[in-house]
């Protein structure tokens, strides 16, 4: 079975970390990831940029409504995620709209990825 592990934290606290502290945390995480990569267990890893960089496509309107900011409702739950390579935000939003048409209702939050591993060990 594949498991996705989702990381939550207070953004205003994490964004205020000094570079040294951030590096320290990332280094400790790398140790964990490296061990799991060696065991062949590691899938893709993504550290997302802050929610201030997010844009949300709401699908309950026609055409879909594009809003600045993260998905902030509590009525819906996180059901899955995709990672795409895009030239810019506009292209990412186009993909989100395509997905919305195929899968009606709810919303898609589009968030740039700050740090990404494709499943191989961190370097």
């Amino acid at each position, binding site marked *: 079975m594949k498991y996705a592990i989702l990381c939550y934290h*207070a953004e*205003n*606290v994490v*964004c*205020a*970390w*000094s*570079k040294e*502290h951030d590096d320290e945390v990332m280094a400790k995480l790398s140790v964990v990831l490296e061990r799991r990569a060696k065991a062949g267990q590691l899938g893709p890893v993504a550290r997302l*940029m*802050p*929610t*201030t*960089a997010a*844009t949300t496509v709401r699908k309950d309107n026609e055409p879909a409504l*594009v*809003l*600045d*900011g993260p998905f902030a409702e509590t009525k819906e739950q996180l059901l899955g995620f995709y990672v795409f390579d895009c030239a*810019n*935000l*506009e292209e990412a939003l186009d993909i989100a709209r395509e997905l919305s048409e195929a899968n009606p209702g709810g919303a898609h939050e589009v968030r*740039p990825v*700050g*740090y990404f591993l494709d499943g191989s060990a961190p370097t």
Partner: protein
Amino acid sequence: MTDLAWLDAAVTGARPQAMAALLRYFRDLDRAEEAFQEASLKALKTWPQNGPPRDPAAWLIMVGRNVALDAIRRERKSEALPEDEAALSDLDDAEGALVDRLDDAHYRDDILRLLFTCCHPDLPSTQQIALALRVVSGLTVAEIAKAFLVSEAAMEQRITRAKRRIAEAGVAFGTPGPVERSERLGTVAAMIYLLFNEGYSASGGEAHVRKPLCEEAIRLARLLLRLFPAEPEILGFTALLLFQHARADARLDADGAIVLLEDQDRALWNRGMISEGEALLDKAMRHRRPGPYQVQAAIAALHSTAGSYADTNWAGIDALYATLEHMQPSPVVTLNRAVAVSKVEGPEAALAMIEPLASKLGGYFHFFGLKGALLAQVGRVDAAREAYDRAIALAHTTQEAAHIRLHLDRLAQDAGQGKRPRRKAP
């Protein structure tokens, strides 16, 4: 992170929200600060025991308000009230209701008001910044004094004076309308930019104490952006700060001397910040409501994404500066544009462009620095030397002066090696 460090980070993170709400309740900066202080002390006692609350800001607001209300009652009745530990115990129920209220739109006006209060037009900009660092960011007076290179006593006095001024003027407590809100937002962004520049224009040895000013400015910009996620100028503003701060590690060499953009080791630029800046700028541009911060961010983006100084898209930068000149005409903008023009059309064109600025920028270091460089490029060595001498006389820091002296030395070297071109009329 140790428990204490976590607690500290949580209290600091919650401070703007909590202070903003407390200022709304008490309409008095000192009272709000005392209330927050008391609440933080109680957090220090109870959080390690009971675990952190679900919403630290809500907890601090609730406790701070209770403590301050008790203090007010005590002052009025001049009699002691029982300790408020009982009030603390039903916090869990109250917290939920308070969190709901925190999501209301008026809550973001609270934080904007708190920031805006620090920007009172009667206060000189240095006092605005110092007050924001103290009240909103929660830096100690000692920390602020160190960053501004003044004694603690002097900074204490500066902040006290600023607070008195604000208390006399009164805080604007009405809910702002859309126009007023947007004006406040502009004023607050300008103050945060001043704070950033205070850290950015750091000279050598002080860099390590001034860098936190830039970081604090970015933290406040992010805060504004969370409150106003769809304001393109705030997106552009935050992007601009990120692009500029991304170069911090490359801007000074080991001796603390300034390294110009063209000589910077681009491997030292913070790629994470640059990508975040690009993402924010991308979001801003979707609104098709350009403004000066977005244009400046776009200029910074072209610099940040160029592989080398030579590979920079100077034509793009020239065009963006032309737009900025149109939006916000200023001799300094034209001066900056002249750098791009010198790359696209050559130094003669740039010299012609800056010539009319002489009367307005006669006391500006960078004007003479650029003039000297352009004159040197066209071989007018004596005129270049003259301009460099003026620049040195106008330098604000020893680093700035040292940098110009380096150019003077190069001029002298070139002349010594017989490279000196035929002297043209100055």
